[in-house]
């Protein structure tokens, strides 16, 4: 039976069970406590105070110490943020450790675990942004990573793919983080409001020159529209990255809207290439970093089988762009604490 019978009666069977003791503690939901006899305690304290005040007034000549304060001095931490054993700091608030190496017939995967420093709120801070890696072999070769795989439910874990096969566990000397990703995103759009296009009714394709074909994004990266073609049966957009940073990569997800100013707007269904992991919550993929400098998008009519032909229409392209640039990093991770698995075949 609960300490507070009223609380027990008022508790709904639908009330969620607080399973997390940490959350319960943090939220201060430890439950009601009973405080018996408050008036008696208050009265006792008041009585004692009255008597003690009288005693002090009657004994004014007694020397009273001028200070009985205790000062507690807290020494400042000088070693910076703390990380669990075995983790190597990669910046001021995050550290990383190799936990597994899987050598398969098609590639080698290195899985790492990342943790925040003990001064970081894990619930409100941004996680590992992705990186560029080298698998360092004992013969001196350095194999550059091609893909980072993560899972939304595996907090802090990332598996990096290296295109190397036929190696043994002893051939791996270390893993080096050579670049730390900075992820940026924006939405850009361009339209043909001043120069409507008329799609041929015979289904043939026409090339459209958007009002803007080059968008300066940031950090020396620009998005270029290389081709935009449209017919009543669908459309095609080819894009590439341009600019000063040859290592930047991006993912582009455009949407197309056609309007003649009178009828309802016509929207498109977009398919993109390289294909992304198009599950409901992950439209831009489960990999940490987009891995391409060029791509394509295809537009299918959303309403009906075709777009309207023979009518001047404004085309509007709205493009969600997520791009990554890599900042310098020079961190070497040991592999001696990792588990190794060499797969057959």
């Amino acid at each position, binding site marked *: 039976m609960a300490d507070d019978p009223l609380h027990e009666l008022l508790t709904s069977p639908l009330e969620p069970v607080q399973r997390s003791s940490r959350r319960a503690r943090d939220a201060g939901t430890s439950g009601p406590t009973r405080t018996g006899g408050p008036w008696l305690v208050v009265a006792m304290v008041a009585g004692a105070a009255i008597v003690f005040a009288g005693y002090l007034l009657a004994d004014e000549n007694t020397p009273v110490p001028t200070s009985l304060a205790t000062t507690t001095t807290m020494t400042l931490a000088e070693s910076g943020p703390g990380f669990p054993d075995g983790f190597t700091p990669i910046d001021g608030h995050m550290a990383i450790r190799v936990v597994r190496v899987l050598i398969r017939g098609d590639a080698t995967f290195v899985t790492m675990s990342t943790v925040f420093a003990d001064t970081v709120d894990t619930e409100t801070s*941004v*996680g590992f942004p992705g990186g560029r890696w080298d698998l360092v072999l004992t013969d001196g070769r350095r194999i550059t990573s091609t893909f980072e795989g993560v899972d939304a439910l595996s907090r802090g874990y990332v598996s990096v793919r290296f295109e190397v096969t036929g190696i043994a566990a002893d051939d791996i000397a270390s893993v080096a983080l050579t670049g730390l990703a900075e992820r940026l995103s924006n939405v850009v759009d361009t339209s043909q409001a001043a120069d409507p296009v008329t799609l041929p009714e015979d289904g043939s394709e026409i090339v459209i020159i958007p009002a803007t074909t080059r968008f300066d994004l940031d950090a020396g990266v620009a998005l270029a529209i290389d081709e935009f073609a449209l017919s009543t049966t669908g459309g095609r957009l080819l894009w590439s990255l341009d600019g000063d940073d040859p290592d930047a990569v991006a993912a582009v997800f455009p949407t197309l809207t056609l309007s003649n100013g009178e009828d309802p707007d016509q929207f498109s269904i977009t398919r993109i290439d390289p294909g992304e992991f198009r599950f409901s919550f992950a439209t831009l993929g489960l990999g940490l970093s987009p891995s391409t400098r060029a791509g394509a998008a295809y537009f299918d009519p959303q309403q009906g089988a075709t777009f309207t032909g023979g009518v001047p229409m404004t085309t509007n392209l709205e493009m969600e762009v997520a791009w990554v640039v890599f900042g310098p990093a020079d961190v070497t991770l040991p592999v001696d604490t990792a588990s190794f698995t060499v797969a057959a075949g």
Partner: protein
Amino acid sequence: MPRPLVIAVGLLTGAALAATGIVLAPNSPPEPDIAATTTVPAVPQSWWVDPHETIVASSAVVPGELSLEDGEVVFRYDLVSIGPMMRGFVFEDDHLIGVAPETWTLLTTDGEYPGTTSTITSFEARFPVEDGFLLESVTGIRLDGYRLRIPYTYHLEMPPTEGAQVELGDDRTLALVTLLPQATSVVVQLRFSQPDDPFSTHSTDMTVTGVGAEWLRTTNLQISGSELFRIGPDVPDPLVLRVHSIYWIPYQAAIDIDLGGIDRG
């Protein structure tokens, strides 16, 4: 008792106690006029390890309670991650984390008892004990083994032939079960095989999509597999697929769990 009477009794009792203390107190010399200084070692502010929490991989075990139920000692705990969320994702449920304790040892004054956690979603360890066992004899709990939820995401190539099979490591395979070209599309059914493992889940262990704009969608099959749809009658050779998979990898450990402050119910 009426409230005025309570207050009166309290006042008298407090006054009597204070007066007695004054009379009986020794006439000690005054304290020196200096401040006492205490220096304590630096303790960094810690978000991820509170007192009595134990780090396991990138998570912390938060002890809950220890009880004796039907011939078993039950250790209930919570897990909180000290690892970062995947960018762009927020999950309210702390339990969706990448560590799952599996095997344990109960340490007592009379010996050791092995225990297990039954699944990745069970946050309790059970230790069978003999009749007459007393919780007071428990001196500690050691975690002997746990699993890590390790993600593998990658592209692979597969010949467009029914029966084709690709080895994925850790005794896992991906097989092309059905290839069905139609007038305007192609249907591909894939089956994922892995060792029987009642400890971990299977429903989301592997999902496969096609690489390229022609692949419209994927649906998960009821029995560990995926069905892919591709626009057009052509069957590409090879099939280029993108795999997202989860392996629950076992790890051995010898981690003493901090039981300080635990509720021995």
